[in-house]
């Protein structure tokens, strides 16, 4: 089995140019704007003098590739610049926000699985039955609801009317965090579940029709252990791949949700930075998130290989 993991070094090597590309894109985002970034930061009311001063300070008078080189070397040393609003290193801000966002995302993922797996299995055992139609109706609706709106609705119903959970904020202790993060995580989960359910339901239906399920039944295996040992292990494989791809969307969605629920994670950091026109911070967050997604991609491939013994990523062309 470890033999099949030998693709990892190659995969990481493959990811490096992508990582570089990410840095270039982030750099270009702020430096290739129409107009002067200094103007964008200071706003249109700025005086020419202050614009010139800021430009010099930001090194904007140097040629583009030199600016990128500076940017990259700083980056590799762990220096993402100074936040214009907080006057603190961006790296520090990002790193203190990361655990918050990561716990939100992980929480949402766990909730999604708790909701999706039973629903998908439920629906798949009787396709076109009543419960299947109900699940598919939810899937359709779930994709049509704006995430932030779902969050607001949850706040309205659960926090305001029923007073079961707090309206916003993050809390102090880890237990507090679980409590405060429940509604935001649930909001993300509600949006994530349709994708998982659709994939899992389809693959479960396919697995249930397979010959080897017949073989297992002929051995007298049925019910929960049939599902666990034979069905789920096979049906989960394509779904893992889909979840991996959608993790990016999940992180992106958490951005807005953090704003709705006032959670001090990367999302709030970025959005506040946007309104404060804090360039370096915006750059830092975007960079971090993108690199995170690249890493998640590699991890997904590893998990996929571990789950499906037929896969040998070292030999096949990247089927992407």
């Amino acid at each position, binding site marked *: 089995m470890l033999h099949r993991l030998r693709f990892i070094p190659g995969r990481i090597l493959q990811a490096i140019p992508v990582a570089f590309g990410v840095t270039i894109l982030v750099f270009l985002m702020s430096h290739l704007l129409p107009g002067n970034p200094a103007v964008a930061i200071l706003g249109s009311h700025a005086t020419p003098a202050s614009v010139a001063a800021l430009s010099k300070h930001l090194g904007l008078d140097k040629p583009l590739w030199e600016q990128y080189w500076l940017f990259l070397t700083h980056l590799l040393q762990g220096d993402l610049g100074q936040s214009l609003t907080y006057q603190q290193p961006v790296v520090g801000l990002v790193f203190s926000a990361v655990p918050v966002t990561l716990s939100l995302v992980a929480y949402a993922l766990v909730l999604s699985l708790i909701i999706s797996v039973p629903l998908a299995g439920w629906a798949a055992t009787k396709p076109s039955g009543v419960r299947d139609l109900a699940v598919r109706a939810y899937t359709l609706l779930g994709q049509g609801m704006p995430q932030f709106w779902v969050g607001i609705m949850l706040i309205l119903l659960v926090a305001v009317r029923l007073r079961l959970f707090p309206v916003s904020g993050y809390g102090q202790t880890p237990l507090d965090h679980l409590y405060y993060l429940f509604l935001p995580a649930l909001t993300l989960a509600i949006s994530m579940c349709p994708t998982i359910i659709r994939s899992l339901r389809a693959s479960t239906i396919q697995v249930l029709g397979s010959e*080897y399920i*017949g*073989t297992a*039944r002929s*051995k007298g*295996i049925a019910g929960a252990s049939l599902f666990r040992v034979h069905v789920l292990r*096979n049906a989960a*494989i394509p779904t893992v791949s889909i979840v991996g791809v959608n993790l990016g969307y999940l992180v992106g969605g958490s951005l807005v949700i953090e704003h709705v629920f006032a959670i001090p994670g990367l999302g709030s950091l970025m959005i506040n930075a946007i309104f404060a026109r804090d360039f370096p911070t915006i750059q830092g967050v975007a960079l971090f998130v993108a690199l995170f997604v690249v890493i998640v991609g590699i991890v997904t491939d590893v998990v996929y290989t571990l789950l499906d*013994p037929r896969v040998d990523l070292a030999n096949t062309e990247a089927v992407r």
Partner: protein
Amino acid sequence: MTETPLLSVRNLSLGVQRKGRATTVIVDDISFDVAEGERFGIVGESGSGKSLTLRAIANLLPAGVKVLSGTIAYRGQDLQTMPAKSRRRLAGQEIAMIFQEPMTALNPVMRVGEQIAESPRRNLGLSKSAAMDLAIDMMRKTGIPDPAHRARAYPHELSGGLRQRIMIAMALSCSPRLLLCDEPTTALDVTVQLQVLRLLEQLCEDTETALVFVTHDLGVVNQTCRELGVMYAGEIVERGRVKDVFADPRHPYTKGLLDSAPDFDQPDRELIAIAGFPPNLADRPDGCPFQPRCSFAVERCATSRPRLEPVLPVLPGREAACFETARIFQGATA
């Protein structure tokens, strides 16, 4: 024979019922017995209903296909009326099945040793290591080289012949009394076929396991089975001991099958195909199902359905469902 047969199928009919439409009968009123240690073959073309019959016994009918009438009795107990739990227990411990395509019939993400060990673990209550030892032992008995090592392989890493041996090992792991085989050698190379067949025969003889063997290949039936039933369009049209039927067929369809099969002993004999094609089951004609293709048919054949009846000379189990059998076969000149 006064003792209860191991398996007794009586008046079994299978079909598809759709709301608002007429029922399509796929298997029509068939009956046969299988004694302990017997080797019973069911021969027929694709669509004759032979696979479905097997699946009905194993309780593995595909969605939509139902038992319309009749009984399936194992050791005297009706399988359909017994509680589901008991039937499952039988499936684990006494009745086993081997499928046609071992690649799709084995769980692709589970090691083969585990898959063989699964049944003894659950049904015989063996511990994990005891079951694995049993699995390796079974693999050895089925002629798989280096079984301890091979047990850790996944199905896609093995050849077709090895996979089928795994299936056999898996099926025989709990020493079943009845083994149902659904065309187990059809998907294999001819050279491997013979090995697998011989293996099956050997193992079943050693353990006195009864075999119900479904195939379209007459050579295989000849090799492996002692008794056979010929199915056409969902009915058994001829029955008897293999050597009796092959030497002296009493149904035009059986004769047609034999005439169209290559024979090593007569390499230059002309192969004569049976004209026409199997009937549309949704639109069953009255009368004998083979009548449209039968060159011996008379008027009566189109209007009433012949039943299985003993033929002369009286031999054990020897029956044919043809009105004209006496005229066609016994009046024949050499």
